């Protein structure tokens, strides 16, 4: 026989004694796991939606609505390009990238297209290098619901993202337009009377960008003869900052413009996420309080009913350490089982009910299993600590007393 056998046999002998503790832990963990699991996918869904929208904050000329922008960014109204410089030097926390755009109608091989002028990322970096480190790098507070998971890069969508390098004589072709016109990298194309070299064909993104041609902002400004203006500035901001006043700061900084946040589109989901976040804290407190009390209680009862056994073991030569280990191991087992059951139950609830309620596909998160089991074991062991010490301090002579 070994120590584990001793612990297991006792548990099997009196399974009811640990049922309440196990149940409380299981339910508490299940609630936590379910919430965290759904929240994870919900946050990801928000992030993905925002990413699909590209920027999450837009600076538009006064009088242009979000609807105008979405129906076509060819609304014709402009604002000075120097706003972009102003933003770049502003050192505003939470701004991850800036993308000014100017869209003008043009023709390519007798085909009506939209020529979009963009600024390559390298120009910002060059300017911002001596000025600030905040811009374009997510700051410390921005870890949750980052609006741009991963680094992104030029390969997704040039207007939504940023293009690292783009020279004044170059053009980028959307996937659809490249296919329709048959142009390849290195081809020369004539746009608004000037010949540009196709430096890249962009991979298909499934958005309007596939049907567009991109060129350097300053080239487009020169060819369209509109002066140093842009139609809009797309800003990728850290979601939390966007939610917490970045928009207002931008509006204050750029009078005469309209600053709108695209996250309004996903506002309900963001607030649901926040609710879930708070709920999970609440459940954590409940789990620790209730499960801890329940485990402590059942351990105290267990110590009481096993006084004679403890006395006997001590008479035979068990050390106090051995005795307290008997009870702590039991708590570890209860915590482990509770965490495991809770994880299974919570994940099941998240995958079935959770995904139904939120309309987001949810799959179990294995990392939560480790957290659930570890956390539950910790709570349960901590709760059993004091009763176990009491057991160790019992007098062995009580096994001589009848009863």
């Amino acid at each position, binding site marked *: *026989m*070994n*120590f584990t056998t*001793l612990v297991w046999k006792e548990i099997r*002998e*009196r399974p009811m004694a640990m049922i309440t503790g196990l149940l409380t832990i299981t339910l508490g963990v299940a609630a936590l796991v379910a919430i965290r699991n759904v929240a994870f996918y919900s946050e990801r869904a928000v992030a993905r939606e925002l990413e699909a929208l590209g920027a999450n904050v837009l600076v538009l000329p006064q009088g242009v609505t979000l609807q105008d922008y979405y129906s076509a960014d060819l609304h014709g109204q402009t604002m000075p390009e120097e706003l972009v410089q102003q933003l770049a030097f502003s050192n505003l926390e939470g701004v991850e990238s800036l993308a000014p755009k100017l869209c003008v109608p043009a023709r390519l091989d007798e085909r009506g297209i939209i020529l979009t002028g963009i600024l390559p990322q390298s120009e910002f970096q060059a300017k911002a290098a001596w000025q600030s480190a905040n811009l374009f790098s997510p700051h410390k507070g921005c870890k949750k619901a980052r609006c741009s998971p991963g680094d992104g890069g030029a390969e997704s969508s040039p207007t939504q993202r940023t293009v690292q390098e783009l020279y004044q004589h170059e053009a980028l072709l959307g996937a659809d337009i490249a296919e329709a016109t048959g142009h390849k990298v290195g081809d020369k194309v004539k746009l608004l009377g000037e010949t540009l070299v196709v430096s890249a064909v962009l991979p298909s993104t499934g958005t309007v960008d596939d049907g567009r041609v991109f060129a350097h902002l300053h080239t487009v400004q020169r060819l369209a003869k509109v002066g140093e203006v842009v139609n809009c500035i797309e800003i990728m901001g850290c979601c939390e900052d966007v939610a917490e006043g970045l928009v207002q700061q931008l509006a204050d900084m750029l009078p005469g413009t309209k600053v709108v946040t695209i996250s309004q589109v996903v506002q309900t989901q963001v607030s649901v996420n926040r609710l879930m976040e708070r709920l999970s804290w609440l459940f954590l407190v409940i789990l620790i309080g209730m499960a801890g009390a329940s485990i402590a209680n059942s351990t105290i009862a267990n110590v009481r009913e096993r006084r004679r056994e403890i006395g006997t073991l001590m008479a*035979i*030569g068990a*050390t106090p350490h051995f005795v307290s280990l008997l009870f702590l191991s039991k708590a570890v087992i209860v915590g482990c089982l509770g965490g495991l059951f809770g994880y299974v139950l919570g994940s099941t609830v998240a995958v079935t009910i959770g995904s139904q309620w939120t309309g987001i596909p949810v799959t179990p998160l294995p990392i939560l299993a480790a957290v659930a089991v570890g956390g539950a074991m910790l709570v349960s062991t901590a709760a059993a600590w004091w009763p176990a010490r009491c057991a160790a301090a019992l*007098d062995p002579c009580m096994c001589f007393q009848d009863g």
Partner: protein
Amino acid sequence: MIRLEAVAKHYRQEERLVTALAPTTLTIESGEFVAVVGPSGSGKSTMLTLLGGMLAPTEGRVWFDDESLYDLKVAERAKVRRLKMGFVFQTFNLVPYLTAQENVEVPLLLRGEPKAVQRARARELLSLVGLEDRASHKPTQLSTGQQQRVALARTLVNDPRVIFADEPTGNLDPDTRNHVLSFFEEFHRAGKTIVMVTHEIQAASRATRLLRMADGVLRDVPHDEASAPHSEPRRLAS
């Protein structure tokens, strides 16, 4: 080998001090078979637990093999019990959720013996007490006599040098009582020490030394006095 040096034990009961053991000095030599008799409440169990290192005295010292038991740390005292002492209880005190075999293995587990050794030794001891066919029975599936035999096997499995027994035959039928007592005699013949608290004249008569306890005061009883038919008609304790 065991010495009580001016040892006394008082209990406090609602402002009143109860003397369970008056200051006592006593030496028990290695190889003695001592019976302790006395009326109920006279302090016999108290003395036994003091000797066994399980109850700290109010005054005095308890020496075991030149070690002052209660000057040792709790864990060290547990080690002395584990390696040198064996206990037999009136109520057997088997662990209820373990089989007979496992109950006998517990002291070996506490000593850190490997599983195979535990199993072999426990089997050996169970067959010594005639219970090899009951190895997988739980205590509740055993008769009282069988339970005490399992308890005896558990005590002997460690090969202790001293056995402390508190009314070991109090709950037993005559057959098992004899069985247990002959084990004690055999243990004694092997040169080991036994301190046995008992109410029964028959059990006490097997001992080589008789101590009588009355109101916490202990005194030696010469053997002829103990066995005189008129002084103690049926029971030594009355």
